[in-house]
């Protein structure tokens, strides 16, 4: 080798894609005459190989084992530019190290590569049978393997010499035929090996990709064996022999010999799976499918195709089972089964592989195949024209029948081919069964070149794959949902239309309970020439998909129709749906999972604008809300009742905002509570202002007293839910020179106005203003003066009475007065020396009595959120008792919230952190359940629902997967039970551990 030559070729080698140029240069030297008189010729051919280094090495290895004469023949082949065959060897050797190894071992097969062609099934069967001959045992196994690979290298060569995407159907079909021919040969071997095999007629049915005539280079070959006794043979004996033959045939394919093995033969799709007998008669298959088979088994049968053995028997079998496939969709559990199967397909990816998976996961090969089969099952019952076995053929038929749009079908076809070719190239490289994109840059580069990319092949192939993945990402929308529109509206002139009946079948299979109604709504939303109809036509498929994923698709669709009817062609609405990306999705999800929001939106469609931006989903502060409310009040300066309506409308909009954000998962429990508390106190303030204005107007003079509203209970604690009442105390303080009686009257009127206007019907849900915690309860005056409160509280002697005051916080009205009231009660609720034994007993007794009396009749003591075992009130009383006892000495305990106080209690060793955790968990879960129940049902709910549907829907709102209603129940009961144990110990002072027996005789 001269340095000059090296310099001369170095650049060329690199340009044709060689990675290790010095090594390639050496190898070229070894090739001698093969390298061509003009070395250039071979080197430029190298650029055709996926991996030129590998190709070169392969040539060298091949050359070593060839005879002189053969070397000359190859040399001539490589040099002949006319034959069109010269780069066949190079492409094959460069694409697959496994096939290169095979060629070196069986070097005569280079001629087969050179003359590669795709053969028909019959030719393949004859070729394999010819090579195996009459052999049995190991010789036969070896011959079968060699013969099989002789054909395999040819198929691979044809694949590599053409546009792979274009020839994919022929290549995958040939692979399936080759597998069939191998099974045929294996069956022949088995029949020679098993004594008495002539007594049993046996057919091998190809299933899966083999049956679908679209096999991979290497994967399990799914089969079912069908047997019948030959004329005059005893059935039991024949079946026993059949089983032996089938087993032997499987061994002939799978057993590793010095020539390796073909592939695994998997007979698990047979009736009863692995537990069932390996062979069955046609009648036995029929009996099984008629009686026991599950929906997925019919889906598998869709692919069944006789591939080897007795031809007549195969035809009989098909005639028997094919019709049953199409009856599957009439089965009772079909819809549920299909939905569960779909969930499994989508969820079934190991997380660490998800980003590299070609086969599993959303938009993967399995998903495409499954979706196509599903459509075939749903519609194939009434339409024979779509009963194809192969995926590509089925896509075309479905498109022709109008079950998928034409453009979608075309793109899907393309995407499927590209994904499959990627899979083929990855498998071919080492003949390994894999469906994962490689990760190393060398492998990616090789794959990219194998896919035909020459510049930056590694990046290009990743880009290509991503593009196809994007193409199929909206697969379900395009396959399942978009065609539904064609049933009610003409989409484009090219497309065939789906019939109304088919559309109903489809909707039901997708989870709509009232397909007729759904069709009506879809029709109303999408027909016409208006801009709205045209936008909604585009949007409807994906909206339907979003609805179908939630608890109540029908509810969502109906609400969407109502809102769309109300908003008509409002321009921002259409723009939002069309342009804002996630807006339409959130809208669909909210409408199909929440009656609460749906009902409010139907009354204020304009609030739909909240969906427009995620910024809109941040709850407003009390000041922001109040400013807006006061502006609305000022605009109604003459009409107090109108002003009230304006405030309540405003509140409704804010409630919708909070609920949407909650459902969208933007807010945690604490934020929801804060938002509702802010909204409630702003509303109280705004209405109080109107009430004062109203009373002043009535009296024709200014108010003679100052008024403050003190929040109690959950309002004061800052922990309100959607359905919480506003617990309050009203306090007023007559001005210095006021007439006390007038002041009292005025205060009473203000409070009464405020309460009636908030609790009556009006825009949005009412607020129940509950002043039941006031002195003397319902018998006492509704508003008292500060002095009167002071006098009343002074009569308390035992210390337990102040419990209700623990959460008191001023929420509206005169801030100074509010502060003065708090000043008044602080020493009562946080007594310096704690509370007495007697007071402790009183509180415990009170709570025990409440537990006995307050659970509503017929209610379950466990499932009631507030009063149930381990529920909200158990947690709150435990916290409050601790505050009464210790807030005097521990200033940090002087707070009104439940959860934040729990934290302080652990810091001061008043509770172990384990106990605090259990209380917090139960309290938060009950609060979240209560909120979620309101969102789902649209009205207050006190306890775990007794219907599984409700429970499931509520679980979804809490972020649990579909169909977890029962687990949610069980989970809440467990959490609450543990919280109750803490309450038993900390509140009631019960200690279980001190109650052990000892032996009676020595006690």
């Amino acid at each position, binding site marked *: 080798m001269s340095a000059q030559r090296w310099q001369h070729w170095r650049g060329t080698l690199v340009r044709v894609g060689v990675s290790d140029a010095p090594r390639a240069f050496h190898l070229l030297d070894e090739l001698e005459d093969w390298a061509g008189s003009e070395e250039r010729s071979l080197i430029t051919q190298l650029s055709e190989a996926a991996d030129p280094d590998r190709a070169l090495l392969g040539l060298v290895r091949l050359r070593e084992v060839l005879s002189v004469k053969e070397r000359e023949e190859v040399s001539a082949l490589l040099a002949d530019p006319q034959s069109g065959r010269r780069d066949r060897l190079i492409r094959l050797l460069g694409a697959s190290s496994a096939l290169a190894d095979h060629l070196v071992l069986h070097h005569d097969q280079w001629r087969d590569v050179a003359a590669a062609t795709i053969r028909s099934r019959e030719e393949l069967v004859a070729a394999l049978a010819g090579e195996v001959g009459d052999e049995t045992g190991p010789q036969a196994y070896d011959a079968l393997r060699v013969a099989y690979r002789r054909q395999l290298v040819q198929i691979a060569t044809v694949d590599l010499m053409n546009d792979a995407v274009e020839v994919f159907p022929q290549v995958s079909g040939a692979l399936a035929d080759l597998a069939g021919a191998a099974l045929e040969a294996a069956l022949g071997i088995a029949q020679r090996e098993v004594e008495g095999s002539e007594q049993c007629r046996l057919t091998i049915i190809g299933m899966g990709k083999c049956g679908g005539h679209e096999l991979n280079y290497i994967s399990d070959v799914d089969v079912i064996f069908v047997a019948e006794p030959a004329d005059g043979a005893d059935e039991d004996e024949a079946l026993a022999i059949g089983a032996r033959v089938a087993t032997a045939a499987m061994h002939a394919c799978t057993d590793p010999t010095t020539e390796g093995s073909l592939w695994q033969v998997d007979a698990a799709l047979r009736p009863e799976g692995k537990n*069932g007998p390996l062979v069955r008669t046609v009648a036995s298959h029929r009996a099984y499918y008629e009686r026991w088979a599950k929906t997925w088994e019919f889906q598998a049968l869709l692919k069944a195709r006789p591939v080897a053995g007795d031809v007549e028997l195969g035809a009989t079998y098909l005639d028997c089972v094919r019709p049953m496939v199409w009856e599957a969709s009439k089965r009772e559990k079909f819809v549920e089964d299909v939905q569960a199967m779909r969930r499994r397909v989508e969820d079934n990816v190991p997380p660490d592989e998800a980003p590299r998976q070609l086969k599993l996961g959303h938009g993967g090969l399995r998903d495409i195949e499954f979706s196509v089969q599903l459509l075939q099952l749903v519609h194939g019952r009434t339409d024979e024209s779509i009963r194809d076995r192969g995926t590509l053929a089925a896509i075309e038929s479905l498109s022709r029948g109008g079950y998928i749009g034409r453009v979608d079908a075309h793109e899907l076809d393309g995407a499927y081919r590209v994904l499959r070719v990627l899979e083929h190239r990855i498998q071919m490289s080492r003949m390994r069964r894999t469906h994962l994109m490689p990760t190393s840059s060398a492998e990616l580069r090789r794959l990219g070149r194998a896919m035909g990319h020459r510049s930056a092949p590694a990046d290009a192939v990743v880009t290509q794959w991503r593009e196809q993945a994007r193409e199929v990402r909206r697969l379900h929308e395009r396959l399942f949902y978009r065609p539904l529109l064609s049933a009610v509206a003409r989409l484009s002139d090219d497309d065939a239309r789906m019939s109304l009946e088919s559309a109903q079948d489809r909707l039901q299979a997708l989870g709509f309970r009232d397909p007729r109604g759904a069709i009506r709504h879809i029709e109303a939303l999408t027909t016409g020439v208006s801009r709205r109809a045209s936008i909604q036509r585009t949007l409807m498929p994906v909206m339907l998909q979003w609805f179908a994923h939630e608890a109540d698709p029908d509810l969502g669709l109906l609400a969407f129709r109502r809102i769309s009817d109300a908003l008509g062609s409002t321009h921002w609405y259409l723009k939002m749906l069309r342009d804002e990306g996630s807006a339409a999705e959130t809208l669909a999800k909210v409408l199909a999972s929440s009656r609460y929001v749906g009902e409010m939106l139907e009354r204020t469609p304009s609030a739909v604008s909240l969906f427009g931006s995620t910024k809109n989903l941040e709850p407003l502060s009390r000041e922001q809300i109040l400013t807006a409310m006061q502006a609305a009040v000022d605009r109604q300066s003459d009409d107090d009742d109108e002003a009230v309506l304006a405030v309540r409308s405003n509140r409704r909009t804010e409630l919708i905002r909070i609920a949407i954000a909650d459902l969208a998962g933007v807010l945690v429990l604490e934020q929801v509570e804060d938002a509702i508390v802010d909204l409630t106190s702003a509303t109280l303030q705004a209405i109080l202002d109107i009430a004062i204005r109203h009373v002043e107007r009535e009296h024709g003079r200014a108010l003679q007293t100052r008024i403050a509203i003190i929040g109690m209970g959950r309002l004061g604690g800052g922990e309100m839910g959607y359905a919480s009442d506003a617990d309050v105390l009203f306090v007023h303080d007559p001005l210095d020179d006021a007439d006390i009686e007038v002041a009292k009257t005025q205060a009473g009127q203000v409070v009464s106005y405020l309460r009636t206007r908030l609790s009556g019907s009006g825009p949005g849900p009412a607020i129940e203003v509950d002043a039941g915690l006031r002195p003397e309860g319902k018998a006492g005056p509704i508003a008292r003066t500060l002095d009167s409160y002071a006098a009343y509280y002074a009569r308390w002697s035992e210390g337990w009475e102040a419990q209700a005051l623990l959460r008191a916080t001023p929420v509206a009205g005169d801030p100074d007065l509010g502060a003065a009231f708090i000043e008044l009660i602080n020493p009562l609720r946080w007594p310096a020396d704690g509370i007495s034994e007697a007071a402790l007993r009183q509180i415990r007794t009170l709570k025990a009595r409440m537990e006995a009396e307050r659970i509503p009749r017929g209610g379950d003591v466990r499932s009631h959120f507030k009063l149930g075992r381990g529920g909200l009130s158990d947690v709150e009383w435990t916290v409050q008792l601790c505050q009464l006892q210790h807030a005097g000495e521990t200033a940090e305990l002087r707070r009104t919230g439940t959860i934040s106080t729990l934290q302080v209690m652990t810091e001061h060793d008043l509770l172990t952190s384990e106990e605090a955790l259990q209380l917090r968990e139960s309290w938060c879960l009950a609060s979240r359940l209560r909120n979620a129940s309101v969102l789902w049902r649209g009205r207050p709910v006190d306890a775990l629902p007794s219907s599984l549907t409700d429970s499931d829907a509520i679980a979804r709102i809490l972020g649990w997967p579909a169909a977890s209603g029962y687990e949610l129940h069980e989970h809440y009961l467990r959490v609450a039970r543990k919280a109750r144990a803490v309450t038993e110990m900390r509140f009631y002072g019960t200690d279980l551990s001190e109650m052990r027996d000892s032996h009676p005789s020595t006690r």
Partner: protein
Amino acid sequence: MDRQQEFVLRTIEERDIRFVRLWFTDVLGMLKSVAVAPAELEEAFAEGIGFDGSSIEGLARVFEADMLVLPDASTFQVLPWRDETPGTARMFADIRLPDGSASLADPRYVLQRALAKAADKGLTFYTHPEIEFYLFESKLRPDGQPVPVDNAGFFDHVPRGTGHDFRRAAISLLESMGISVEFSHHEGGPGQNEIDLRYADALSTADNIMTFRAVVKEVALAQGYFASFMPKPLQGQPGSGMHTHVSLFEGDRNAFHAAGSPYQLSETGRQFIAGILRHAAEITAVTNQWVNSYKRLWGGAEAPAHVCWGHNNRSAMVRVPMYKPTKGQSTRVEIRSLDSSANPYLAYAVLLAAGMKGIDEGYQLPPEAEDDVWSLTDRERRAMGIDPLPASLDHAIHLMEGSDLVAETLGEHVFEFFLRNKKAEWAAYRDQVTHFELDQYLYRL
């Protein structure tokens, strides 16, 4: 399974079966039965048979919907004692919700769940119960006391032979139902018998125990006696226990066996025992579920009232039996607290859960008890770290109430129901004015 169902339908046809009883067990371990005609069976396999769960103890409806019973074809048996044509057959059934999911209130499911949890760790739970019971004359004495059929003792060959005939009849019936019987002999009390069922996985064993009780009662009736599984029917005589030998298998390997270690007991086996002991008190309400159970438990002699283990120590709650050198697979642990009236599904579920907890958490096994625990004083026992089991149902309920292990094993629904039911039983018992009280107090006070 589906072939099994086919087999069932065929057998029914061939043997002219007119009724099939679907058996299931309520939370208290009582056998319940729904009879279906063969024509309905096919549907029962596919869809289940609907029934109103609220009428069954412990199945009270969690959700407002009917329940389904779904027959388990692998348990199909023709009932041999109704020796008549047309015949009757039975299958055990699972209880399902209308959507096909398992009912959390079904004791069989409680055990299946516990077994599945162990199976996740690759372990299978095998059990082998020795079931004791009494045979009484069908007529009670005028004072209400039962009359034992004989007065023999342990292993005696009884000349009159009532028990012998009886055992032979019962065993042949059991065998004809596919339940293998290992051993049978006369037990310590008059009229008391013991029959051992062969080793099987815990679910089969539990099914077999339910069948066993039904068979024994049937045979006794046919011979003019009655059989009782009451834990302590006769004061001053031994109670009826259900000592159960248990072991865990990892595939074909006995996970309790380790050659060369003390008693050939592996670390796993030691941890399992430690789990049973540590949680013994809180699971007692399940393994010994009646007021009467505690009269057996605290009856002295071989009844195990103390939480300890020993080798061939018949006063210990857990015994590691003599190891047979030739049978590595036979390493096992005998739990002696169980009584014959337990709900076998729940009892095996809590025992397994306690043992698995010991394995999961790597509990240390306390030292072996070598003495007769009953002969020790209270103080000696305390010094040795041997705690007593609860002495009454009341106490057992209290301990169970605080047990996460039991709640999680039984599921919240069964847990709650069980506690409520047992509290009611205790309250009813406490309301009684007993013979003891009348004898002791009526005249004296």
